[in-house]
């Protein structure tokens, strides 16, 4: 009887659920967890730590993702059955809307400049593009367009921080770090941008579009520029040309290159005071 009882007690053992080990590794910071999500570029691997999303990559296999993660950070990534609920829902929201929004990102180890470039790129709405020089201006370092390019090329969380929306000043799409360069076009088209029309404009040397009713000029992909009807659309080669024609820059997309610095101060003040009108 005793033997039977102790035997039964022994068979009350249960193997620990598979989620325990990854959860422990993630909570202690020994490893990051990762999940997969679908994307216009195929299966997306998304790694996360206690601090937020740390790494995004497309990879053929889990092994190759884990290897790349390890090369990048020097720590492990392990497959997690699930993400913490809040992180999972903000990730889903970010993917659905194409907006980084309040998605927590783990950008530890990046320079302040790098982080500010990524945050700036995250402000560009889905389906729109801005030049590298725009990002450089916006982060307060107008001459740093090349450094901006390098920072975006080293974006650890592409797609979620939409570095694919930052393009060359001449309108060409430029390079892209997630897979091949052509992926940049694929992503922008998946967001509804007509890259052919944009390429035609760029090919004719058109960098900015204005409206002759409002006398405001925009980047061609700005949502306000896209509302200008054909008869009222005016094309400009640069900001100086727009301004000598009596146009002022849009407060939504804030095109660069034609104005004195005082205006940008005014712009930011009016934004802060809440009297900011987009157009």
């Amino acid at each position, binding site marked *: 009887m005793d033997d039977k009882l102790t035997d039964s007690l022994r068979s009350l053992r249960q193997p620990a659920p598979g989620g*325990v080990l990854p959860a422990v590794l993630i*909570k202690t910071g020994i490893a990051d967890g990762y999940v997969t999500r679908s994307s216009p570029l195929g299966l997306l691997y998304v790694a996360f730590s206690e601090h937020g999303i740390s790494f995004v990559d497309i990879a053929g296999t889990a092994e190759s993702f884990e290897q790349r993660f390890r090369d990048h950070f020097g720590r492990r990534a392990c497959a997690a059955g699930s993400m913490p609920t809040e992180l999972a829902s903000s990730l889903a929201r970010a993917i659905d809307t194409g907006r980084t929004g309040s998605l927590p990102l783990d950008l530890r180890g990046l320079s302040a400049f790098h982080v500010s470039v990524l945050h700036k790129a995250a402000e560009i709405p889905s389906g729109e593009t801005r030049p590298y020089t725009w990002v450089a201006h916006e982060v307060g370092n107008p001459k740093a367009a090349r450094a901006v390019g390098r920072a975006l090329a080293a974006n650890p969380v592409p797609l979620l921080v939409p570095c694919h929306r930052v393009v060359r000043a001449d309108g060409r799409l430029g390079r892209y770090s997630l897979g091949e360069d052509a992926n940049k076009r694929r992503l922008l088209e998946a967001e509804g941008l007509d890259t052919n029309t944009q390429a035609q404009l760029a090919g004719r040397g058109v960098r900015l579009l204005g409206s002759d009713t409002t006398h405001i000029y925009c980047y061609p992909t700005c949502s306000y520029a896209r509302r200008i009807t054909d008869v009222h659309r005016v094309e400009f080669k640069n900001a100086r040309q727009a301004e000598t024609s009596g146009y002022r820059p849009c407060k939504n997309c804030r095109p660069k290159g034609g104005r004195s610095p005082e205006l940008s101060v005014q712009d930011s003040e009016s934004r802060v005071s809440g009297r900011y009108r987009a157009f």
Partner: protein
Amino acid sequence: MDRKGAHHTDSVELAAALAANIDTAFLDLVHATQDDIFSGALRLTGNWADAEDVTQETYTKAYHALGQYTADRTKALHLREWLWTIAANLCRNRIRSRRRHPEAPLPATLQAKGPGPEQQAVAADELSLLAGHLLKLPWQMRLAVVLRHVVGLTYAEIAEALDRPLGTVKADVHRGLAHLRNNLEETQWTTN
């Protein structure tokens, strides 16, 4: 489970490895002990989600504690006993907070193994009956029986983990088993 010598050697080696490089050795520690901790926590709390939480929390606490310890202190640790000191406290806290905030306990599902679905069902029934009786034992008795016979610790290991005298632990295990036996007989009596 009764390979005391093997456990002991493993534990000493693992403690030395933890002292040398916590991040690589900690993975081995979790691998080596997670089934023990989870099984024990499951039978102590009677709740799958609690057992999972307790297991995770045990290791998180252990990891942070190890971060504070000197290499010598880590090397000298009796890992299984030490982990169970942490885990047993967490289980008791869980049970207390459940009592204060009761919610429907999830059935601790049993993966029946072995042949034939019918026999499986019978075996699973018996086991869940036993699991239910375990939960009715007073805490110290339940703890002693679970650690001895579900987890497979020795009396000495239990005494160290719980910081209780060896004789008391033995008595708790024997009295616990006697209770279980009586309760099981009674149930059989009424069901037959």
